[in-house]
């Protein structure tokens, strides 16, 4: 892994909290409000870091480990993404399985941390989280299958790197479908509208928020930052599929990437302002829809 | 000479026991029984070491088939004799004379059957076995045993009568052959001139002998007497019947099959044998389901195994060897199971589904019963597995996958039925000991009662791992005589 790859990674880490900020800003703009500044999340994190910690008596170390493990595994996951559009810091055949595994590990840790409080609200949130995830993950793998078919390589670097650029001309339709379904995944996995409403304040309707109900202070900071990072990673996936950057020089590729992330954030904001959030029982159907898109994308290439 | 002795000694002793008023008690007859049994076994062993010459002008001879059956009978008889010692401590038959005498007479008759090479003599011996056992079935003299005896007597007498007719048919097949056909009804001569025998008569003879001796074997649909009889007779008698008596009957069928095979009429005989075999399997499977009495269960299991025996004959090839091996395994295993059932009946009054948790009350017998369940249903590592597998193999080799499938299905159903009853009795919480039960505690598993079954179990287990050389080639020769091949 090269130096600039790490620098790129660092940049990504730094800019991550801005991505949800952009989404929120867009939404408030479209709904005619001023809304919080784009960099609000940085402020929140700074504040939370400084706060003291309060733990429920029912909790065990699992409660504290949750946020840490989640964040750590997300950071490791980031290592597999070719930010410069060519080569990721880490790659091996089948590392896409590792990528998915890391996301799952993060989820596992967070959800258990939530359940550790013993509150039925967390239980409810956990149940919803895993339910949604069990439909999101197959969809993601379906996208991966399509990408493997297009790129003929079993590693993320290969899939998002040069081979993908080469594949666009003949597999364009399929790849754009993949992009769309990855975007839906992004919404679902990061509990955005129409799956979840990050702005809601009614516990019974929450999904992601309710799991972390009892986390506060630095723990919450880790969780919030992790959420932003996860959103960013999915954004990277979407951008890498739709905008192959293998041809460009490292710097240009990065610039394009961050521009793309901005666009994705805007899109998220737009979706949030034009769509209402669907009923929970409908969420699986939404994801099955996304899976159907990815399936079509796959079949287009298996044909 | 030894052959003559084998038949004469038990017969003489039987007559003495019957006649001499001195033997009203039980001790002496039983002691005699034991001695004769051992002597008999010793003689039989000597036959294995030094093969005997035919005697009585060829009427008595020990060929592989006969020797197998004879040995089986002898072994079972000794085991039974040992068992009786323990048995009589708990249940006294009305008259030791009838008891010992009947058993000895049976031994004599069975030896005659096993050694007879003159078919009419074979028949006489066979009828004699039937009659000698009747008083034993009838030992308890209550309504149920009476009914059992009556059914047994009449049905098997009719069957045996048919066999007699069959024998006469065979004689006239020989008579009609024209030319010198050798000495009448003498097995070697029949086989030697088999091809000149009058085919129509030979066919008829085969069918009647099959139905007749099949009745005594307990092939469906002539099996009807079997559950009633085995259910009511004292267990050790049932054991002898299903172990030794049926084997003798099978020997009868095998003899005529030898002739038919030698005459090249196998293609005529095989379908009939297969048909009876499959029917028996089916009937056994049907009646085993939901059976509540172990002894009746074993009776149906015996019907099943008789079916397998004739199936093996019918399938020919390696199947014949399978039948011979199965004959041995089945005889031993059946003796084992009936003796165990006897122990349970002694301890709890009746070996029926009413029992629970025998593993607690009668550990040894219960263990033997469970092992026996797996042995009788042809599970490895018991000997039955090898023979059943051989027969199955014969079915596939002979290109009868459907027959094989039927066999498998029947075996599966029978296993379910047997397991349901046996395991139901063995497992569970034993009922709280009631007032009248302390006797049962006393009955528990005296060494005499367990030794016999254990011995038999050991042999059956051994046959699953190791078939001694002499036995193997005797069985192989027998199979070849039956128109089959070795393994």
């Amino acid at each position, binding site marked *: 892994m090269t130096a600039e790859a790490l620098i790129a990674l660092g940049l990504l880490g730094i800019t991550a909290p801005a991505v949800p900020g952009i989404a929120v800003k867009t939404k408030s703009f479209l709904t005619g409000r001023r809304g919080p500044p784009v960099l609000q999340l940085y402020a929140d994190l700074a504040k939370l870091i400084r706060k003291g*910690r309060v*733990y429920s008596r029912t909790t*065990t170390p*699992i409660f504290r480990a949750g946020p*840490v*493990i989640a964040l*750590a*595994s997300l950071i*490791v996951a980031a290592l597999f993404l070719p930010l410069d559009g060519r080569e990721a810091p880490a790659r*091996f055949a*089948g590392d896409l399985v*590792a990528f*998915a*595994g*890391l996301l*799952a*590990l993060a989820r596992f840790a967070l959800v258990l941390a939530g359940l550790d*409080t*013993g*509150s*039925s*609200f967390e*239980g*409810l949130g956990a*149940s919803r989280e*895993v339910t949604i995830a*069990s439909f999101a*993950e*197959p969809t993601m793998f*379906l996208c991966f299958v399509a990408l*493997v*078919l297009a790129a003929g390589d079993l590693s993320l670097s290969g899939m998002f790197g040069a081979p993908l650029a080469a594949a666009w001309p003949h597999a364009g339709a399929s790849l754009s479908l993949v992009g769309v379904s990855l975007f839906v995944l992004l919404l679902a996995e990061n509990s955005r509208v129409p799956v979840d409403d990050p702005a809601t304040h009614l*516990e019974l309707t929450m999904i992601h928020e309710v799991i972390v109900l*009892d986390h506060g202070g*630095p723990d919450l900071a880790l969780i919030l930052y992790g959420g932003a990072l996860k959103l960013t990673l999915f954004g990277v996936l979407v951008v890498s599929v739709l905008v192959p950057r293998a041809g460009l020089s490292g710097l240009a590729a990065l610039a394009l990437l961050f521009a793309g992330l901005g666009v994705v954030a805007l899109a998220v904001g737009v979706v949030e302002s034009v769509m209402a959030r669907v009923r929970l*029982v409908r969420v699986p159907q939404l994801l099955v829809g996304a*899976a159907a898109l990815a399936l079509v994308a796959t079949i287009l290439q*298996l044909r | 000479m030894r052959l003559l002795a084998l038949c004469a000694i038990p017969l003489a002793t039987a007559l003495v026991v019957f006649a001499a008023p001195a033997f009203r008690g039980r001790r002496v007859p039983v002691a005699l029984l034991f001695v004769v049994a051992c002597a008999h076994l010793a003689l039989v062993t000597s036959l294995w070491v030094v093969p005997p010459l035919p005697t009585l002008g060829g009427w008595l001879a020990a060929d592989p088939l006969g020797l197998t059956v004879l040995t089986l009978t002898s072994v079972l008889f000794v085991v039974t004799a040992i068992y009786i010692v323990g048995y009589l401590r708990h249940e006294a038959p009305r008259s030791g004379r009838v008891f010992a005498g009947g058993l000895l007479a049976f031994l004599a008759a069975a030896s005659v059957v096993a050694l007879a090479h003159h078919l009419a003599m074979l028949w006489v011996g066979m009828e004699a076995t039937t009659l000698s056992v009747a008083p034993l079935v009838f030992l308890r003299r209550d309504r149920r045993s009476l009914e059992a005896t*009556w059914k047994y007597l009449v*049905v098997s007498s009719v069957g045996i009568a048919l066999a007699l007719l069959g024998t006469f048919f065979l004689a006239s097949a020989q008579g009609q052959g024209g030319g010198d056909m050798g000495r009448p009804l003498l097995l070697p001569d029949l086989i030697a001139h088999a091809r000149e025998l009058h085919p129509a008569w030979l*066919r*008829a003879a085969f*069918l009647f002998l099959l*139905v007749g001796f*099949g009745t005594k074997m307990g092939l469906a*649909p002539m099996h009807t007497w079997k559950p009633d009889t085995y259910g009511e007779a004292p267990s050790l008698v049932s054991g002898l019947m299903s172990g030794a008596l049926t084997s003798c009957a099978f020997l009868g069928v095998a003899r005529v099959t030898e002739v038919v095979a030698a005459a090249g009429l196998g293609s*005529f005989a095989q379908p009939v044998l297969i048909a009876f075999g499959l029917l028996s399997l089916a009937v056994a499977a*049907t009646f085993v*389901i*939901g059976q509540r009495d172990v002894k009746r269960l074993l009776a149906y299991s015996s019907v099943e195994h008789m079916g397998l025996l004739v199936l093996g004959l019918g399938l020919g090839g390696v199947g014949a060897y399978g039948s011979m091996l199965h004959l041995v395994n089945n005889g031993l295993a059946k003796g084992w199971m009936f003796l165990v059932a006897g122990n349970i009946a002694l301890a709890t009054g009746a070996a029926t589904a009413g029992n629970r948790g025998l593993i607690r009350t009668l550990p040894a017998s219960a263990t033997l019963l469970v092992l026996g369940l797996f042995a009788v249903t042809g599970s*490895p590592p018991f000997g039955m597995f*090898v023979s059943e597998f*051989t027969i*199955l193999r014969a079915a*596939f080799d002979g290109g009868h996958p459907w027959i*094989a499938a039927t066999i498998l299905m029947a075996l*599966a159903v029978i296993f379910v039925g047997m*397991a349901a009853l046996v*395991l139901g009795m063995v497992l569970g919480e034993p009922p709280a000991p009631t007032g009248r039960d302390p006797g049962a505690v006393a009955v528990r598993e005296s060494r005499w009662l367990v030794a016999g079954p254990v011995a038999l179990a050991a042999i059956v287990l051994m046959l699953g791992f190791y078939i001694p050389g002499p036995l193997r080639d005797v069985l192989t020769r027998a199979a070849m005589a039956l128109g089959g091949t070795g*393994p």
Partner: protein
Amino acid sequence: MTLVAVGLTLILLAGLAASRETLFRVLLSAGCVAGAIPALAVLSGDTVRDVRLSPAMPFGPWVFGLDALSAVFLLAILSVGAACAFYGLTYLAHERGRRAVGAAHLLLAVLVASLSLAVVARAALPFLIAWEVMAVAAYLLVVLEHERREVRRAGMIYVVATHVGTLLLFALFAIWGGAGGATDLSFQALAAHPPFSAIRGGMILAVALIAFGLKTGAVPFHFWLPEAHAAAPAHVSALMSGVVIKMGIYGLLRTIVLFGAPAPWWGWVVLALGAVSGVLGVVWALAQHDIKRLLAFHSVENVGIIMLGVGAGALGLAYGHPLIAVLGFAGAALHTLNHALFKSLLFLAAGSVIHTTGTREIDHLGGLARPMPATTATFLIGSAAIVGLPPLNGFVSEWVVYQALLRGASAGDALRFAGLAVVVLAFIGALALACFVKVVGVLYLGTPRRALATAPRESAAGMIRPLVALAAACVVIGLVPIAVVPPALRVGSLVAGIPAGTAGLPAAAAAGPATVFTVALALSLFVAWGLYVAFGRRGQPAQSATWGCGYPSPTPRMAYTASSFAAPLLDVFRSFAGVRIHRTAQAFATHAVDPVLDEVLVPAWRGVRSGAAWLRHAQRGGLSQYLLWVGAAVVASLLYLLAVGRNP
């Protein structure tokens, strides 16, 4: 080979010495080590000569041998067997006097020995013997607590299922021997005489699939599995779920070794069974709230994953893609070993919970993490492993299977559709995660949902040590794929009939970086935790109650139950979920039904029974009826005689 023999003898001796614990421990561990050494040697590449006994039995000599395939299974058997045996000593200790504990230990030893014998047997007869001894020993162990009615029922179902499987194996070898015309039924001979006709070959493959499927508990042959596992004592369930059901997998793989490349349809069927078993297994697991039944259904799920690997391998063979074949079989073998480790770990941990709380009902428990930290930690590791999370062993094997399927997708011909199975695998993984979040969360976290008779305590060291050992194994394998993947590939190429090391190279190459990754991940997790602790020092954390969203006094009945947790997922699979939902205004509960057992087999058997009862009339009534049957037989045979007489 001799070493294996020595090992088995020692194990059996240990069984006989079950009354004296220390002796038992010594002999058993000695035996397991003795058996494991050659297995490891073979896996690391050298070969062992076969042993040929020719006892006086029909069907040729008895051969015993040890190749990579046998070795990997032998390893699983011995390691898990030892763990379960040691655990059992403590687990059954309080039963001494009430039960024949010595017999139980003896049976366990017999079970382990027969399992090992089954995987080294190289001829039909010894294989069948070992197979049935194993089945019977397992049965007797399952019904150890036979005074409970449901245990007897479960035992009955199991023994019938396994015996039917054995009968099918009879058929298998009978057909195969007949096909090749080999009187000698040693595996060598079977392999040397391929069946003549496609039909016979098809029969062999089909019978093998059903027979071994019954043993391995793949849907729809799984019906006996949850019953038996729930009924047995914990360490027995662990051994059964860990290795006994794996013998079905062994059978399938061995069949391929001997049979050669199977027809494509077989591969597709296996793949389909794997997919169905995987998904339904985990869905049904979600529906359970008896911890042992739940774990049992997860065995069905993992068998599904393994069969996905086998199917991919078989298809790779059928369509001539050696790499895919090797990967598929390797993944199957490796996942078999891993599942043996973490599933027995989970069962044993569950056993330690049941041992102290006396209930298997998840919804009655909760908050056990505080009283039983060791159990909780090991169970957590097991859960993460079975879900397939890095850096644990479950991930490694699933990674291999994934590779097989993904490469299948990019293979040109019909095989490419197998790639879609990737989705199924992912779905299984996600559902498994849901299910284990449920289990861990409800069992160990939060608060007790009912007041227990006695306060739960951590189990004795004798039960914890095996847990720790197994957990350690899971972690180690997970951390160093480089150590386990090449041997697995060796097994794979053996099964695929390809010289080792040629076809599997790309995968072997990937093992190195994968190791780097897993280690790095583990390190980063530690580092993160370290940093967190280091920087988290400032200020003592305050204690308070969980925030009830304004509701001050939570009661146990308010805690989220397993039923409620699983409800949203189960709603999605309405009729397949295998649950009956009871919703009242106050309470919500689900109870699981088995679609195959409760809705097909049991009614069918009732039908058979009543049919038989009806046929009983043949045996009613008196003598004249009996005689008429004899007459009927005579008449029938006379008719036959006439028929033949017409056209002899």
